[in-house]
Structures are given as C-alpha cells and as structure tokens.
C-alpha cells in the first residue's frame, strides 16, 4: 500500500507541474486552457529533439538515471516550447481577446489547438513511442518494506525546486505582483500602469516552462507518446478545481489529492478507471462544496 503512495506522490508532482500553467492561464487569461496537455507534450518532444541533436545521451547523476544532458536539454526545450506557445497566442488567442470573444470561444479555440498539436506530433513522429534513453528503474529499499527509485526522488525534488522558484517569482518579484494584480482586476491593473500584454506573455512562458519540466520528466519516467499530455488533462483540471481555481498553492495541494486518489484507485484494482476515479472525485467535491468552486465573483 505504502508503495502505491510513492507512485502517487510522483504522479502528483507531475500533475502539479502541469496544472500550474493551467491555473495561471485560468486566472490571468480567464479561460480553461484545454491545450495545456499539449504544451506538456510539446515540452517532452522538444526535449527529445535537443537530446538527439546534442547526442550526449541523458547522462547520470550517481544512482539517478539522468543527469546534466537531460536537464540542459530541458532548459533549451523550455525556450522552444515558450516560443511556440507565444506564437499560438499571437496568432489565435490574442486576436480573440482583442475582439472580446467569450470565454467559451477561447475554450473552443484551445480545444482546437489541443487536437491540432496532438496530431501534429502524430504526423511528425508517426505515432510510435519514443524514449530519451534506455532506462530500467532500479529501486532500493529506503527502509524495509519500502522501496524507492532514485529517479522518482529526483523528479519530486525537481518539482519541489520548481515550486520554490515559482513561489519566489509570484510573491517576491514585481512581475509576480503584476500577475496577481491582473488576475484579480485587469482594468485596475491597466490603470496602474501594468502592461497587461507583457504579463500575459510571462504567464504563458512560466506555465509552459513548468509544463516542459513535467513533460520531460514524464517522458523519462515512461515514454513519449502524442497523447501523453492529453491524458494528464483531466487530472490537471481536477487539481485546479479541487484547489479552488484562484490559488496556486491550492492547485498544488489539489494535485497531491488527485495523485494519491489515482494511486489508491490502482491499488484497489481499478487501474482501468483511473481517470474516471479522478472525475468522480471532482463530482463529489462539486456536490459537497459547489460554492467553493465558483471562485471570486467578477
């Protein structure tokens, strides 16, 4: 049982990394970004591209089966993913915002981007799974009866580091303060001299960066498939809703709950229904606390 817990935590870390971008676009741009999963996928494949171009493998760090080459590739991939996301925003979402398009129009556009992104990856890779490197997880006993994989520990540590950086950005920098201001009241933010367009750019970039980290780590841990990000979309949304939608820490906490719930579902033999279990958690939560989900009035 406790073994499933460890899986749940790793899963939670990946969900949280992805869901933060969702939460940021939800609060700053005010729509549910159905293409968030594909940002994650893009990050994973861009990392693969860089790993391949560098040709240095993914390295190792002591017992961990990946090292600097993968991390450096990931950082380059963050720039590439961020650039793609900004171009999509410029071509599609920005004109829609400029027209004061409804939230639903934005969601629909995102739904379209999601399908296009997934199928572009399919088109370019032929749909075959890819791997960064040949990797067999080797577990060691942290204490009797509880084994952990060094890579899993590394994943959780990297996620923790990313959250710490995010915390500093949001709470200790001027851009973070501006993001919170735009999230709360875009008009007042503009009156205050905040360039909302710049804030929106940074929102996309930060979300894409964390999603790229999630994608690369997920790709290392499993495999790269065109649907890898899309399959995480529902858990990410669930984390967002559980966390109360307007609060980044809530989103992380929500991700932990979802990750553990999914691990529990697997533990009791419902692995085929994993996503459905996630969904059931949202539904139960919605039934119990509908008012907590409505977020702030606009």
């Amino acid at each position, binding site marked *: 049982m406790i073994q499933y817990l460890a899986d749940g935590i790793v899963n939670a870390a990946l969900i949280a990394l992805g869901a933060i971008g969702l939460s940021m676009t*939800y609060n700053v741009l005010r*729509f*549910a970004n*159905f293409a968030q999963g594909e940002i994650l996928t893009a990050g994973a494949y861009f990392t693969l591209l860089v790993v391949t171009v560098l040709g240095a493998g993914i390295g190792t760090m002591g017992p961990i089966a990946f090292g600097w080459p993968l991390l450096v590739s990931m950082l380059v991939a963050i720039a590439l993913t961020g650039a793609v996301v900004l171009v999509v925003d410029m071509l*599609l979402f920005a*004109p*829609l915002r400029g*027209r*004061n*398009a409804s*939230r*639903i*129009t934005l*969601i*629909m*556009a995102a*739904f*379209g*981007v999601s*399908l*296009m992104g*997934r*199928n*572009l990856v*399919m*088109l370019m890779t*032929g*749909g075959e799974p890819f791997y960064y490197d040949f990797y067999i997880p080797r577990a060691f006993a942290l204490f009797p009866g509880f084994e952990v994989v060094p890579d899993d520990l590394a994943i959780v540590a990297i996620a923790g580091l990313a959250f710490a950086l995010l915390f500093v950005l949001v709470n200790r920098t001027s851009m973070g303060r501006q993001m919170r201001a735009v999230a709360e009241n875009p008009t007042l933010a503009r009156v205050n001299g905040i360039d909302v367009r710049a804030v929106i750019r940074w929102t996309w970039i930060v979300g894409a960066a964390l999603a790229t980290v999630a994608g690369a780590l997920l790709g290392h841990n499993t495999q790269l498939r065109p649907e890898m990000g899309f399959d995480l*979309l*529902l858990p990410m*949304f*669930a984390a967002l*809703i559980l966390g109360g939608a307007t609060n980044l820490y809530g989103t992380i906490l929500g991700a932990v709950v979802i990750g553990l719930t999914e691990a529990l579902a697997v533990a009791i033999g419902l692995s*085929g*229904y994993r*996503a*459905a279990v*996630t*969904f*059931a958690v*949202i*539904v139960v939560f*919605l*039934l119990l606390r*509908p008012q907590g*989900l*409505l977020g702030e009035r606009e």
Partner: protein
Amino acid sequence: MMEGMLSFAVFFLVFASFYALCSLGLNLQWGFTGLFNVGVVGFFAIGAYASAIITGPAYPDTLFGGFGMPFPFGLAGAMLSAGVAALGVGFVTLRLREDFLAISTFGVAIAIQLVCLNFEPLTRGPNGMYSLPRPFAGLFATHAFDNVLYLVVCLALIAGVYLAFERMVRSPWGRVLRAIRDDEVAAAALGKNVFAFRLQSFVVGSAVMGLAGALYANFQGFISPADFLPIFTFQVFVMLIVGGSGNNLGALLGGLFVWFLWSMSEQVMQALLPPTALTQAAAARIVLIGLVLALMLLFRPEGILAERRIVSREARLPRAPKR
C-alpha cells in the same frame, strides 16, 4: 460505376445524419441555451451501447443485455438512456459556471469511454459488440436498398427533430432559453427557474445525441470503444460553428458540409498516399479540421448562417455596453 457512386452517396448521407443529429442536439444546448457540452461523444456512446444492448444478440460473456428487441425500441431506449444520463450529469454540473461545465462534461465523456472499455460484463470492453441487427437487412437482394431505406429513416428522424426544435425555440420556452443564454441574471430576475430550464435543454439535446448513437450502432452492426473518441465531439463542434450556432438550419448544413470535407479529404488521401502513411494521413486531416475551426473563430465567428433574430423588431435594444 453509377451504382457505386450512388451507394457511396447513400452511405455518406447516412453518416452525415448521425453528425447532423448531434449538431442539432448541441445547437439546442449551446446555440440556444449557452451550455458548453464537451461531452457530446459520451451521450452518443450511451445511445449506441443502449441500442446495442436492447436490440443486439446475447453474448456468452455478458451478464446483461441481448434482448433482441426491434429497432424502434433501440432508438427509444437510446434516447431514454442518454436523457437519464444527462439528467444526472446536468444535475451536478449545470449550476457551475461555463468553464467548469466544459471541464465536467469533458470528464463525463472520458468516464463513459472508460466504462465502455473496462466494464466488460455490459459492454464486452475492447472487443466491442458485434452482429447488431441492421433493420431492413434481408428485405432486398442487395445492401444498397437497405441503406436507402435506412437513410429515409434517418432523414425522417432529422426532419422530426428539426421541426420539433424549431417549434420549441420559437415557443415561450425557447425564448426563456435564449434569455438565459444572453443574461442569466436577468432571466433569473424575471422569476425564471434558470436551473430547470437549462436542465431541460441539456436533457433534450443529449437525448437527440443518444438517438444518433443508436442509429450509428444499428447501421454499423458493430461498435467498440474506439468509435467514441474526443475527436467526435470536436467534429460536431466544428460543424455547429461552421454552420452557425443558434441556427438549426445552420447546424444541419454545417454537419453536411464538414462531413463532406472530412470524407472527401479521406478519399483524396487514400488515393494519394501509400497505405503505410495512413496514420499520418488521419492526423493531417485532424490538423486540417482544427485549422478550419481556428479560421472560422477568427474570421467568421457567426458561422455560414448567422443566428436569426427571433425577437420582434420593436423589442430589440442596442447591444448593452461591455464593461
């Protein structure tokens, strides 16, 4: 040759009918009531499986179903099942704001697909349900005539749904729906039970999607979870957007037009590309349809046929300022 063309056209139109019905159902929910249902395929799947269980043969490995009842019972059962499912889903989700509704319905569709895939005692899981009875089969020497008859049934059902919806949206009931879509608070202030109206619209629209699912199942004679993927929902959305949401005729035309593009692109790609590239070809078509959607949203958001103003001229006010 001529016969081949004709039978292809019939086949094409039968499939277009499934989409047209879903598009009409979604138009009631979204076009007229503003409910963003991302789970169209879920209700379509429920209809298909319900009809398969009601009309299909008994399989050795299922615990329930195989009632072998006539086709009309399958249709009715499909509408009923999808409607009941919509009632449950709607009851939980329709009080939410629009984007949470979108997320929830998206989740519903995934959950339904997982049930189809994993709940083998009912659905036979990935093996699917086969040998579903095709109405009119065996009445004629060739399949071509069955298909024509089937098409007639589909068209009659579409006509029925279309006329019913046209009546409904012009009735006081439909007026309330549009009022809710345009200004929920004002509608509530007028003493309308917003939730009840939304629920009714959601249930009726979903029942029509269920009907489409039953027609699909009994035409194909075989269904499996792979038939019910999110791309289906997306196609229906593109149809409605291209046709013009809020316009029933637009919903039908959009269904026909987008299905035409979709099928033609398949034919073209099959003719041009080697069989080894068919995965890529399918992906390319989806990218293409995504592009169509994006361009429509950007350059003609009202669709080919814009919503007709059903409001009388003197009652019309200039659009309220956006603040």
